Each structure stands twice: as C-alpha cells, then as structure tokens.
C-alpha cells in the first residue's frame, strides 16, 4: 500500500483544526470554567493551598489536556477514514491496472495477424492469474479462476461435456487426472445449467452465484466426485457464460464456454461489482475464442 505523506499531513491538519471546532462557550463552561470552579479552586485551595493564579494555570493545563485528547481522537477517526479510502482505492485501482494488462495481452493477440495458439493460451492464462489476484483482494479469500470450454462430442446432447481449458497457476494442482477424466456436463452442474437458463430467458443478469455450495440441497456439481467425502475445496462460486455483452438482436447468443471463480470462504461474492468484472472479462474472452475458432475452422 502506498502512503501519500502529503495526504497524511492533511489528515493531521484537519484533525488539529477540527479539535478546535468546538463552541468556545462549550470549551469555557465544560472545560475551563467547569474545572476551575468545581474542582481545581476548591480542591487546590484546600489540599495544596493554591492561590487563584496557580489554580488558573492548572486549569489551563487541563484545557490543554482536553484539547490534546480531542485532537488524538479526531486524528484517529480521520486516519481510519483515510486508510479505509486508500485501501478501497488500492483494491479497485489495482483491479483496473490488472484488467488493463489482461486486455492488452488479449488485444495484442487479436491484432497480430500471424498469431499463434501459444499467444492465445498465454492471454487466457494471464486473464486467470490476474482475475485471481483481483478476486483474492476484493473478497479477502483464496480464489481460483478457470475457463471451461465445450468439447465436440460424437453424441451431442444436453450432456455436452465441458473441459477445463486453463486455471490460474497457483491452483493448477486441482486439475488432477480424475478431474480431467470426469464428464463435466452442462446439465450435471447447477452453475452452467443456470447460466444457460438465464441466457435462454434473456435475463439481464446471466451469472450464477452460490455462496454456500457445500450446504445447498439442490446444488449439482460433477467435480464433487473428485474430492474426498464429495466435499468441494471451496464454499462460494461465481460463474458467467462466455458470451458477448451485446449481441446483434440481444436474443440469440453465441456461447464459447464459462468463466468460473470460486472462493474458499462462504458468502464471498456480492451480486453487483464482482459479476460485473467477470461480465466484462467474458466479453473480452469471447472475442479471442471466437477468433481462435474462426481461424481454426478457416484453416481446416
């Protein structure tokens, strides 16, 4: 986190002036006169044999102490506000920078006429790795990001199989042999079938969020069988279909798969900003998979 010393000085200055911003009458009655008349003069006279000047002097000290207390309290409050805003700015600011990098990679791939499959995969992996950093920071949990693509099968049906194209590097160990061999169908997974259902209903929100996957009764997930006790290594899930943000008629969508984010903590995903990030990325990924497919089909 980068701390701006100028801003911090501003915060302290604000606390310094704010500490004074108390009605002068209040200062005088509650602090000055109050202490002088009710405590210091009688008590000082009786115990320490003070004269009036000494009592006033101690009253001024008390005034100073009150001011200092008020200043520190306000400075703490303002600093917390400042650091909170810095933290928020840095989380979403970093997200913008990482997304810019990811899209730069994707656009480079799109703009290069003699692109290679390696460039395509690199750009997919950059998206997954950067999205992981973004979602880790925002959700304050350990997230995993993957891209699933439908595989052409001899028998095309509702049981269309999806395979993991790539996953963020840190969580790549999840793609075990068993995981790869499992038939991950659209119908067998609540996330995919719900996303597809939403597309087919032309629902403006096409994402799927489940914030407690291990305790949801009707939740289907073909990955469960790959783990001990059929318990998934995550608790929350956010999935978005890889479709364009806008289509020609906004009724008929082309879909190239799904982008999935999961988190090891329950209740990780809110439904406003986090799906919006994924929606934008899905739109970008759609273009490059579309380009890969058209090049592949064109070259065949």
């Amino acid at each position, binding site marked *: *986190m980068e701390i701006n010393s100028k801003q911090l000085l501003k915060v302290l200055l604000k606390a310094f002036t704010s500490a004074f911003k108390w009605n002068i009458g209040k200062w005088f009655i509650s602090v000055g006169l109050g202490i002088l008349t009710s405590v210091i003069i009688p008590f000082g006279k009786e115990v320490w044999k003070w004269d009036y000047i000494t009592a006033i002097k101690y009253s001024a000290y008390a005034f100073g102490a009150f001011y200092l207390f008020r200043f520190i309290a306000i400075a703490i409050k303002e600093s917390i506000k400042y650091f909170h805003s810095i933290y928020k700015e840095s989380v979403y600011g970093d997200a913008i920078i990482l997304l810019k990098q990811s899209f730069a990679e994707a656009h480079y791939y799109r703009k290069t006429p003699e692109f290679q*499959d*390696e460039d*395509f*995969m*690199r750009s997919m*992996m950059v998206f997954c*790795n950067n999205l992981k950093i973004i979602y880790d920071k925002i959700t304050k949990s350990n997230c995993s990001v993957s891209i699933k*693509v*439908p*595989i*052409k*099968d001899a028998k*095309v*049906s*509702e049981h*269309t199989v999806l*395979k993991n*194209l*790539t996953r963020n*590097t*840190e969580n*790549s160990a999840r793609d075990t042999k068993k995981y790869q061999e499992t038939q991950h169908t*659209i*119908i067998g997974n609540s996330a995919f*079938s*719900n996303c*597809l*259902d*939403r*597309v*087919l*209903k*032309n629902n403006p929100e096409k994402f*799927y*969020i*489940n*914030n*407690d996957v291990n305790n*949801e009764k*009707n*939740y289907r997930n073909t990955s469960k069988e790959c783990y001990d006790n059929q318990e998934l290594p995550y608790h929350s899930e956010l999935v978005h*279909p890889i*479709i364009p943000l806008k289509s020609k008629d906004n*009724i*008929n*969508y*082309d*879909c*190239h798969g799904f982008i999935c984010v999961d988190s090891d903590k329950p*209740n990780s*995903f*809110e*439904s406003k900003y986090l799906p919006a990030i994924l929606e934008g990325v899905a739109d970008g990924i759609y273009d490059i*998979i*579309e380009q890969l*497919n058209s090049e*592949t*089909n064109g070259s065949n």
Partner: protein
Amino acid sequence: MAVTKIQPRFEIKEQTEESVVYQRVISLKGRKPKEVEKIVNELPTATIHTITMEEYEKLKSIEARLVNEFENKERTTLNFKRAFFSFFEL
C-alpha cells in the same frame, strides 16, 4: 445472499458440426400448434460452440509448457513481496 435456484428447462433446437443450439422448453398445455410455433420462433437461443478434442489437447500441451514460465514469474514476485513486507514489518 440468497442462493440462485432455477430449474433448467431447455432442449437442443439444432446442432451443427461445431455447435449446439439450445432453446427453452415451453408448456404445450392449452396452446394451439400455431401459437406454440409462434412462441418457439420468438424464443431466445444460445448457440454453444465446441472445440474438437484434438484442438483441446493441443491447447493443453501449450498450457503445460507455459505453466513453468508463469510459475517462475509468480515465485519471483512472491519472494520479493514477502521480503519487502517482512523487512518493513508491514
């Protein structure tokens, strides 16, 4: 937050060599065939584009090659980060 619960009700409208077109299933009860046809024609569709297993395997082999590159990059960044934060006790 509420968990999304939607029972998927869709079917394959058509399929080509490299794609599958999905459409919602509508209830036929109390509807005339012409009415059903009109509704079905206006229903949104989703075309799922597939890739061949060969293409997929080719991409996965590229990924396996690139993973090392990414892991090395990540490890360097993480070490530097860890050293920085532990030095300044942040």
